């Protein structure tokens, strides 16, 4: 049933008895044209675009746990596209353009809220790096503007702009189209829309093996719910991508780390935008529900534990309390962790693999949520066409062999 004002009124008056399941709970079929492994936002979106734009007939999304339960449901929902390199600008801006209409596209309110993302600079080196981003983005036609401290005071008066700060705010780069969205709604919206197009979303179905025929081409998967055949397989398993890809004998250049986030108790609107400070490690926004949503850092050691160290939270809250001393009395309501898959150049891997029929989309590290629609769209094209979509092409797996890296971490290199 289409979600609309009239259907809501109608259902409201009939005690909501008419809402159907947002997605079915199908049993796995013996075979599919395409199997997507991982029902997060990227995987579900891929299935949706495969069905919608590329008319692939029989698609299954296999999920070990519950859909949207990985990093899609655990991140701090920041959306922006002010990346440094042209390849990154390409994919993140493609995503940002899709975010704008995603609620209408999916008939599901994903609550995309362009509240502005402000990245603060605290040292001269920060300023240089940040301005480099602004210059690069403006040349590419992507909105990003430099704010001096007095302009920051106007845009986000909650920030402590005292020159007495240990690392005073020297300015910031603002992307006004940046903002937040409701993470669960993204997973559910894609799931419902994909399901409506006939995609089988199969939860509680863990992939235990990837089978290949005599030519090395993938032929299907082994799962906890039996073997399923498929000619093409797309792996979108975030922190566990290395584990799944190893089943096909592909060793991925990924490291997995726990990444934490936390929310405060809900309060009345007190914070207008998204503020990021990579120098002192503070990332914050306020959700529609009223919670302050705060991103912490990764642990220093690789792990698959969805719990990080307390000192990581402390470190983040030190920065939050310093940058926003008015929130020092706020209280942490809940803290959680996810597993992020990190590449050597801090950019994702999207594309073909050495195994025919096997495709992979991973390595989004700490910032994959913002890319969800763009990543899903170009990955669907890549799977459908068997070759990388132009926007995805720079993110090919073999760049680690050729050396054509897209190092988004690089520009934040050390200061003298």
């Amino acid at each position: 049933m289409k979600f609309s004002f009239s259907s809501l009124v109608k259902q409201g008056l009939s005690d909501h008895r008419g809402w159907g399941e947002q997605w079915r709970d199908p049993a796995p079929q013996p075979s599919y044209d395409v199997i997507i492994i991982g029902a997060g936002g990227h995987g579900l979106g891929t299935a949706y675009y495969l069905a919608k734009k590329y008319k692939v007939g029989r698609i299954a999304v296999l999920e070990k746990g519950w859909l949207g339960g990985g990093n899609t449901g655990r991140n701090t929902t920041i959306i922006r596209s002010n990346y440094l390199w042209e390849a990154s600008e390409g994919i993140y801006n493609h995503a940002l353009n899709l975010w704008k209409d995603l609620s209408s596209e999916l008939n599901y309110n994903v609550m995309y809220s362009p509240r502005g993302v402000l990245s603060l600079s605290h040292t001269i080196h920060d300023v240089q790096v940040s301005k480099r981003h602004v210059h690069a983005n403006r040349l590419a036609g992507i909105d990003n503007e430099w704010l001096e401290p007095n302009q920051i005071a106007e845009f986000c008066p909650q920030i402590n702009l005292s020159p007495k700060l240990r690392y005073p705010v020297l300015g910031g780069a603002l992307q006004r189209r940046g903002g937040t969205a409701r993470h669960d709604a993204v997973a559910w919206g894609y799931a419902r829309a994909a399901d409506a197009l006939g995609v089988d979303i199969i939860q509680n179905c863990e992939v235990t093996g990837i089978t290949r025929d005599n030519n090395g081409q993938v032929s299907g998967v082994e799962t906890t719910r039996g073997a399923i055949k498929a000619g093409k397989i797309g792996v979108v398993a975030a922190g566990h991508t290395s584990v799944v890809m190893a089943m096909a004998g592909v060793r991925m250049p990924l490291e997995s780390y726990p990444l934490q986030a936390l929310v405060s108790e809900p309060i009345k609107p007190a914070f207008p935008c998204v503020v990021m400070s990579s120098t002192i490690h503070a990332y914050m926004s306020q959700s529609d529900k009223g919670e302050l949503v705060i991103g912490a850092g990764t642990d220093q050691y690789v792990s698959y534990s969805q719990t990080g160290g307390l000192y990581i939270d402390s470190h983040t809250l030190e920065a939050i309390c310093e940058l926003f001393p008015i929130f020092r009395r706020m209280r942490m309501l809940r803290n959680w962790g996810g597993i992020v898959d990190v590449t050597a150049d801090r950019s994702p891997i999207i594309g073909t693999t050495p195994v025919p029929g096997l495709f992979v989309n991973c390595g989004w590290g700490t910032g994959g949520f913002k890319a969800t629609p763009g990543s899903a769209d170009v990955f669907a094209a890549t799977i459908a066409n068997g070759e990388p979509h132009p926007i995805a092409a720079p993110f090919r797996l073999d760049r680690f062999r050729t050396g054509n890296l897209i190092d988004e971490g690089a520009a934040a290199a050390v200061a003298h």
Partner: protein
Amino acid sequence: MAYSTKQAYRTNSESRLGKETRTVKFKFDGRRYTGLEGDSLASALLANGVHLVGRSFKYHRPRGIMAAGVEEPNALITLVGRHSTAKSAIRSGRITPNLRATQIELYDGLEAYSQNRFPSLRHDLQAANGWFGRFLVAGFYYKTFKGFGFGLGRVGASFAWSRIYEPLIRRSAGLGKAPRASDPDHYAQFYRHCDVLVVGGGAAGLSAALRAGKAGASVILCDETPHLGGSLLDVENDSVHIDNKYAGQWVKSMVKEIAAIKSITVMTRTQCFGLFADGFAALSQQTGDHVPRNHGQSEGAAASADLPREVLWQVRAKATILATGALERPLVFPNNDRPGVMLASAAEAYLSRYGVAVGRQVVVFTASDSAYGSALTLVGGGVKVTHLIDLREAAAQPRALVDKLREAGVQIIPKASITMVHGKLRVKSIQYRRLDSLGQPQGAELEIPCDTVLMSGGWTPSLHLHSQARGTVRWEEASQNFLPAAPKPHLNFKLVSAGACSGRFGIANALDSGLAAAATALKMVGITDKGGATRPKVVERPISWQGHLGAVPHGHDPRRVKAFVDFQNDVTERDLLIATQEGMKSIEHVKRYTTTGMATDQGKTSNLNGMAIAAEALNRPIPAVGLTTFRMPYTPTSFGIFAGYARGNLFDPIRITPMHRIAVEQGAVFEDVGQWKRAFYFPRAGESMHDAVYRECLTVRQNVGLFDASTLGKIEILGPDSAEFLERFYINPWKKLATGRCRYGILLNEAGFIIDDGVVARIAEDRFHVTTTTGGAARVFAMMEDYLQTEWPELNCWLTSTSEQFAVIAVQGPNARNVLTGLVEGVDLNPTVLPHMGFVQGHICGGIPMRLFRVSFSGELGFEVNIPSAQGPLVMAALLAKVQALKGTVYGTEAMHILRAEKGYIIVGQDTDGTVTPDDAGMAGAIGKNKLDFVGKRSLSRPDMIAPNRKQLVGLLPKEPSLALEDGAQVVAMNNPPAGTPALGHVTSAYYSPILGRNIAMGLVMGGRAKMGETVYIPIGDKTVAAEIVNPVFYDPTGDRVNV
């Protein structure tokens, strides 16, 4: 306005507060009341007959106090403090939103406000949300606000959401208001070790702590409340006797006995909010909020202001005993949220602990035996309980208690269910119906007038901390409870649960399991418990601890009534049914779709009921639906305690060089470089930054300057394989470097990109002095250790960081040698003896040992004087005196940057960004040609690393010398590029060069070295600057000036 001194609901019976308690005054929502010292804000309000204390999150329904402790979902208030208005409190920064009235200790002058209502608690306009309640169900927001775009299509819809609907929703959501001024309070942090941490000071915790303490273990016993005793403080005297004492007396004797044991630390008002692997626990202790503070006082004026508000204790315990008890569950029935509907045990606690009757006419609704005891306590305290309605059959009721209640005039109604609660701001009556043999309501609805309904759905063991620490849980069918399961054997899981949180209900069970847990813990710790312990004699009522899960049979269409499951988030039975109907089958989906369990109480009273309703709707057993993950913190915990002392200058350590004071005296302006404060420039009277930097640069070029280079990283490498180690680590050849010579070293990462550089001197055959960049000091040292220990363990050499051991003063300029002459001892400065890139050891300023490098980062004749840090100021003063006599200057990092840029010397991190190879930087010649390997070597031969069109470091000269370029500006091939024009590269360093009298820049440009003389364009703001690609060495390209 006078204070109401009535406290009409204060009983005469002896409460645990004692007889001699002082009357205190307080204000709630501006109204004046009195209470007793020792009250909680909730008990004081109830003493005054106030139940209505808040509004719910979504529907803004009037809400009363439901519980007496940490699990309270409704009574969230904003604590203002003492004697002030809400407005002035917001300005003072000492206002705290969302606190539970049940946990706030009353003091004289306390002031608090209700939340989430406008204009007043009794008349809240947003209660209108309730009228639309039939629409505002689970999933409402996902389904709507997408298409209302005023006919403007998708753009209109997107605009309408973010500009109209979202701000409206935001305003009605949220609870309290955040302060608008900085928090004036401070927070402390401590670390503790102990043998046994006991969490919870009830019967189980007390007996466990005492036994462990007696056996000689160091014990920390913490409890979230101000008083030890747990539920023993709440029961009436006849209900339990321990060791022939009343419960309260026994607690007192235990507290005394525990206090006498030195190895036991008792921490009350202390919440263990986080439990991690390996016995690591996080405790939050309240030290300030129950101590009144005056807003009028300036910070630090009062003694109380010196106290931290809260303290974070990070505890490493060899074993942990969880005695966290159980929480009573509400029953789910229509309008079960009306003010006056409470947990039965809460009413008992208010009477016994605080001497407060929760009402005048009480009806009890239960599915559990324990509520009979609560009713008896109330009756004994003179509270009129008219009816007790039990969901269960008569046969299931506790016979002895039934008789006692009947004697007291309570009408017992078995096999019946409350079907409706009437009254809006306070309960007025209830309706109930009998249940048939299938448990369904039958017959007429009967009404009972009452002002209070006490409910008990049974007890939920508190598994939170056990689960946080990665303990698994199991479902016990008999008791219908999740309980802690045996730990996985591979975990170092020194955790044991005792008492109700482990399903061992009742006092005898609690004491038994507490003693057993202590024995287990002592074994884990390795302490032999010689004395042993036996449980004291317990006389208690034999009751069953079973209860009811999910909604009660109320006979109404659950979609037409509001039977609350999660009170704070306004989640009803209906919402859960809709969620499952819509295909939300995982409990995690149900939770997120309905928001049940996501409020500030994190589902303490709602999770089990919610799960049971979902399980029934999905036709699956409860354990198959499963629990959601328990996460830190157990209760909301102030940001302040995590930040602790890390504020102001303590936010991050400030590193200053040994000569910092001299720089201050010389008028330096400092910049932050990592943790360092570095002298940026030294303005003289009337000089702007540009003036000062201009003068500093020219003075160095023409005369001499002093620069504090102490922040550079320094690493000493010693051992027979030192040269071999460097050979493998840096790209350069080291084996043939002669003793007494220096070489500029470049370090790559495995990907083949430059990540650090620095001068390395060979001090002896087996000893090197390595320098790194300032920012790279720690990282390079760690990387060296990593490689030495894991990749090349066979190499025989040692690394020592000496960054803090040496002060370094760069003496640069044509007059540099004249400055040093006469000060250095035992060193021949003659260029034939100490040429450029030479190194020598000697003394300076009267016997101070010195390592002298003849190196230059300015392009002028230069020396770097390394002396022990402690002697830095002395040597600096001596050098400065000579420099000043020669009319030289001290100079800062900005002049240093310009001088090096004029020479085309790179700054790693500015002219390189982690994507630059030695060849890109024009330094391929530094690579040792005959080396078998070095870090990053293999990567340098990858196809894209040797592609012809890589970005290369070049000079950029603006065609118009007065036009400045900007760091980070993009380089393109065409004038006035349209959006989307690909960049050829970017400007890495742009300066005005005083010696050249023009602007210069360096940049990374695709195929740049093959484009010498070509024109490129650099858009800056609205303008585009044309520049010529040139060799990056702008000044003295032959390098004559360093070789004098």
